[in-house]
């Protein structure tokens, strides 16, 4: 089994993602987007970065790369897909997941550690956490504010499709603990099926035991399901 970490022009978390996945025992490889998905792909990660310079909108160009049609087909066939940061923006731009990630409320690039509350612990990406558990992951983005219509967001919440919300260290969701102004403090969301998910915080940056916290490992272990 191989997790394909897809590189677009301007991806920059691709090698970190492979390193984190390999450290957890996964077989992972870098796949240049023009080369198409390898035949033995059993998981797909869309890594962070600034694909195509965030031109037009973050993720807009990469989402129209031909490989994304392969990714959508693989997702329909049940292959786990995880988009992180720029990968999350690409996921929403390509309709793998609902909503859009747009300019932070601060209009600034935010690079910091945040607390996240696990909203649904019954998905491949959150199954090793407890519902309501508070974890800490880094964020690094300028366009991470989750936007969607109020009606649609209520539907997603009702269907358990919100993975994480930004919160404080005690798990309280508040405007102060919301780093980018995301609607309802949403930090991650699943697609039609929960084996497809996107999130703005970086689990791969909190997964190596030599480097501080490993709160992100359970997310990446979703590829094992």
């Amino acid at each position, binding site marked *: 089994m191989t997790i394909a970490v897809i590189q677009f022009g301007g991806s920059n978390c691709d090698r970190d993602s492979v390193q984190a996945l390999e450290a957890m025992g996964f077989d992972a490889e870098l796949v240049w987007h023009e080369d198409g998905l390898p035949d033995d792909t059993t998981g797909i990660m869309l890594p962070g970065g600034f694909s195509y310079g965030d031109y037009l*909108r973050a993720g*807009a160009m990469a989402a129209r790369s031909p490989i994304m049609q392969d990714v959508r087909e693989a997702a329909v066939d049940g292959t786990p897909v995880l988009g992180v940061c720029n990968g999350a923006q690409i996921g929403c*731009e390509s309709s793998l997941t609902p909503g*859009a990630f747009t*300019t932070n*409320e601060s*209009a600034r690039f935010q690079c910091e550690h945040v607390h996240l509350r696990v909203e649904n612990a019954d998905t491949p990406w959150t199954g090793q956490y407890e519902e309501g558990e508070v974890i800490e992951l880094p964020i690094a983005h300028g366009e991470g*504010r989750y*936007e*969607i219509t109020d009606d649609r967001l209520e539907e997603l919440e009702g269907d358990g499709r919100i993975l994480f919300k930004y919160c404080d260290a005690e798990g309280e969701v508040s405007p102060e603990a919301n780093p980018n102004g995301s609607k309802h403090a949403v930090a991650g969301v699943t697609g039609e099926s929960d084996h497809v998910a996107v999130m703005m915080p970086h689990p791969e940056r909190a997964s190596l035991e030599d480097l501080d916290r490993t709160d992100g490992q359970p997310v990446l272990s979703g590829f094992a399901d």
Partner: protein
Amino acid sequence: MTAFTATVTVRLKRGVLDPEAATTQRSLERLGFELDDLRSADVFELDLDAEDAEDAADRAEEMAERLLANPTIHDYDVAVAEQE
């Protein structure tokens, strides 16, 4: 075939926060200007050959739907003019 310029204007839907516009407005106010609101928009000018204006508008609209706008957060409009 006739040469047209299709102008596609993409703007955030009403009610969607626009931090860049808010920052721009604050800067204008700091310069002493008075204004009630400021909205920003992206404008794309597309030169294309088409049978008629309707054909040109249809094609520009499809480009807006598929790439230039994100329907989750944007509205857009298309205006077509024959090139001089």
